């Protein structure tokens, strides 16, 4: 008997942020990440019948997304991670002699940094998923999207004091959860 069930109507609310964050950290392109997440959901819909319920919905969607990311890199035949080679002519005398110059990648991060940040991102999203819906929405809008207090209050029809109480409760739960799972 399958342990997990599938419900596409809940996918966006439950997994879109997690999948999006997972993708952005791997493709470094917001628009591309959005497309890949959308493609993942579409592919998920098409292969829903193959879902056996052995893994959770999120694990299953992540496995589809990983394949989409690999396909993306195959398509663009990316040179990501390789040193850029610039070819310059030095002077008139040197004309025709090639100089290869290795240029450091300005966004260079060690593999360890990347892994730690990805795992930290996962831990944060796991804790965020444990918050009640309203707290999660307000916390996400304020902390991750970085929206102004007034904007959030207008959008959600709450007062600033309500907002800070919600943020406070969310931060307590987040800190406790991160204490258990990360710190």
């Amino acid at each position, binding site marked *: 008997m399958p342990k997990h069930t599938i419900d596409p109507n809940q996918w*966006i609310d439950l997994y879109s942020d997690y999948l999006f964050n997972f993708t952005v950290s791997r493709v470094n392109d917001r628009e591309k990440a959005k497309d890949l997440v959308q493609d993942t959901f579409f592919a998920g819909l098409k292969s829903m019948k193959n879902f056996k319920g052995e893994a959770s919905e999120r694990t299953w969607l992540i496995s589809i997304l990983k394949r989409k990311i690999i396909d993306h890199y195959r398509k663009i035949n990316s040179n990501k991670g390789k040193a850029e080679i610039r070819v310059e002519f030095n002077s008139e005398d040197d004309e025709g002699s090639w100089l290869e110059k290795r240029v450091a990648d300005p966004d260079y991060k060690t593999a360890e940094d990347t892994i730690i940040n990805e795992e930290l991102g996962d831990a944060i999203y796991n804790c965020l998923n444990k918050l009640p819906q309203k707290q999660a929405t307000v916390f996400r809008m304020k902390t991750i999207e970085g929206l102004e207090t007034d904007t959030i209050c207008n959008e959600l029809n709450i007062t600033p004091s309500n907002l800070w*109480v919600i943020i*406070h409760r969310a931060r307590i739960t987040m800190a406790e959860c991160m204490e258990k799972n990360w710190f």
Partner: protein
Amino acid sequence: MKNKSFLFISCEEAQIICDKSQYKEATLWEKFKLSLRFLWCRITRTYVSKNKKLTQSLKQSKVTCLKQSEKENLKETLQKELKKQEH
């Protein structure tokens, strides 16, 4: 008595000011009141320390998410696709 409440704040108030300060939205006066409480309240000190740790982790992770409007669009597109499949 009035003067006392003017300067001294409750633990929860102090914690909310600490939250605001994580988003750089606490006023100087609020920060002053928080500092006063911080001096003698162990619970406030613990909260401030944990809260700062959380802020640091959030910054370090550089987590990102979809905007609400992007989510709504995605939801709509997915619903259309779902309906297509049902037919």
